[in-house]
């Protein structure tokens, strides 16, 4: 496929019909498109500006309500100010144990999430292609899915040999369902006409799966992966709060036990940031697989 012609210059349209909807901006028509140049447009700058403004306003408001010890239905007297949280954060960053907490949490996420991805996509694909498998597995998903991670804690501790494995189990379970259901949904979206088209081109069952069903499901799978990553973070925290001695969830819970208010907020914000960053990473990784969608929008 790489051997296709690579014209240097885009020739002018000689088509008798209407010009195609899209005109490529560069002369590169090679099959492996060079990575699209990151164009920073006026809109990008302005929305980045709005984000910065919004965050500034948020922090200022937070500072304001804590500075005047606002107590109007909601009580802000015991909420630490942004400055105290920031000071605490800077202090923690310099300790080794803080990084251990983050490292341990990240490792748990990585293990649980990888398991959920492998198993979730497989189960979803099988359910999507086999009516029997679907009817067999679906009831378990329906019943187990609404059970919150926290509710699993006692049983997980009893079932699994180590604390670590029970935490990973709980986290895994959180990520699993969105991935399974989105994969299943994606497989169901496969247009029948495409299946027929490739069958008429001589595709075997496996080739239909590989070249039609999986690519058709990919956008939905990618969405499931991003959602799964978010869910795995709050499941992880539930696991870490009850059992464990390291982890950013444990750090936050420990701060609560010690009535160390600013550390609670530090923990919360670190969780928020790690969750956002890892979801963004998932989106970045799945993006090249959906390149065709971008170019056809």
């Amino acid at each position, binding site marked *: *496929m790489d051997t*296709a012609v690579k014209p240097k210059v885009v020739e002018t349209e000689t*088509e008798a*019909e209407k010009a*195609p909807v899209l005109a490529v901006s560069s002369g590169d028509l090679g099959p492996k498109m060079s990575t699209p140049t990151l164009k920073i447009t006026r809109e990008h700058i302005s929305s980045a500006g709005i984000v910065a403004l919004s965050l500034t306003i948020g922090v200022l408001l937070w500072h304001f309500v804590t500075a005047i010890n606002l107590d109007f239905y909601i009580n802000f007297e015991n909420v630490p100010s942004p400055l105290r949280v920031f000071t605490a954060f800077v202090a923690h960053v310099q300790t080794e144990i803080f990084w251990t907490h983050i490292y341990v949490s990240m490792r748990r996420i990585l293990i649980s999430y990888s398991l959920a991805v492998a198993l979730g996509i497989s189960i979803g694909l099988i359910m999507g292609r086999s009516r029997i498998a679907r009817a067999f597995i679906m009831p378990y998903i329906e019943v187990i899915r609404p059970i919150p991670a926290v509710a699993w804690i006692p049983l997980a501790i009893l079932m699994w040999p180590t604390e670590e494995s029970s935490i990973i189990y709980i986290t895994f379970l959180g990520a699993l369902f969105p991935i399974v259901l989105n994969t299943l949904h994606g497989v169901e979206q496969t247009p029948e*006409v495409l299946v027929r088209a490739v069958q*008429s081109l001589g595709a075997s069952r496996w080739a239909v799966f590989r070249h039609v069903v999986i690519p058709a499901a990919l956008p939905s799978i990618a969405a499931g992966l991003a959602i799964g990553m978010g869910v795995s973070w709050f499941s992880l925290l539930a696991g870490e709060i009850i059992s464990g001695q390291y982890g950013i969830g444990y750090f936050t819970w420990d701060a609560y036990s010690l009535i160390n208010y600013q550390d609670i907020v530090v923990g919360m914000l670190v969780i928020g940031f790690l969750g956002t960053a890892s979801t963004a990473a998932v989106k970045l990784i799945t993006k090249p697989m959906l390149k065709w969608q971008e170019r056809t929008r």
Partner: protein
Amino acid sequence: MLDVLKFKEPDRGKSQGKGQIKVDEVSITFGSGKDAHLAVETTSLDIKAGEFVCILGPSGCGKSTLLNAIAGYVNPTTGAVRVDGEVVEKPGPDRGMVFQQYSLLPWKTVYENVAFGPKMAGHTRTEAGSTANTFLELVGLKKFGNRYPAELSGGMQQRVGIARALANYPSVLLMDEPFGALDAQTRLMMQESLLEIWNKFGTTVVFVTHDVDEAVFLADRVLIMSAAPGRIIEDVRIDLPRPRTTDLASTPEYIKARQFCLDTIKAESRKAFEDQNA
């Protein structure tokens, strides 16, 4: 120069003399029991190798169902479809299919779409690529090979669809209202270029349409179908000279053939209307 970059005339020999279709006492019923719906009434049909046949009829008359039976997507309830003596049981690359629209794989480039069939047939990347280029050139879209389907206009997509079906050197080309979604000008152009391609290849074509002009312009034979239950009510031979161009539409012979088809359809729909009101 690399082999793939060279344009080679498609090798017509591979499919020549093949593509004889025999529809033998075929009827197709969907559902069962009370919900059973007879889509195609017992039909027999012989299509010669290399013939261009249009199946003309209103929507819902079962013309696509009959085509799908030849393609192998639908199994006849009774009877059998044979292509070159072999009973059709499932879809296969010997019967190329062109759909109304959106049947190219959107995640593959135009080039990859056309190379797909040859690859499935076990050809190497180079061979498949060479075939893809040959057929893209045939439909005049070689320089669009690296675009994704959605980047092309509807007419161009259909030409890719035709190139993709032909790349397997099928003995039969089945077309299900392939130009139905195109605007009038593009459709005329596509009809002309389809005839040109067919002239080069000589494959059997079974073309489903509800457009009388399209059927008369393209076909050697127009099979007129009627609805509820679907059956062929007339087999009209169109003896207009070839090669045909759009100028043909003003000749008296064309007008006569067209009028005959229209009259048949009209008489049939009047009868159906009266039956309903009786």
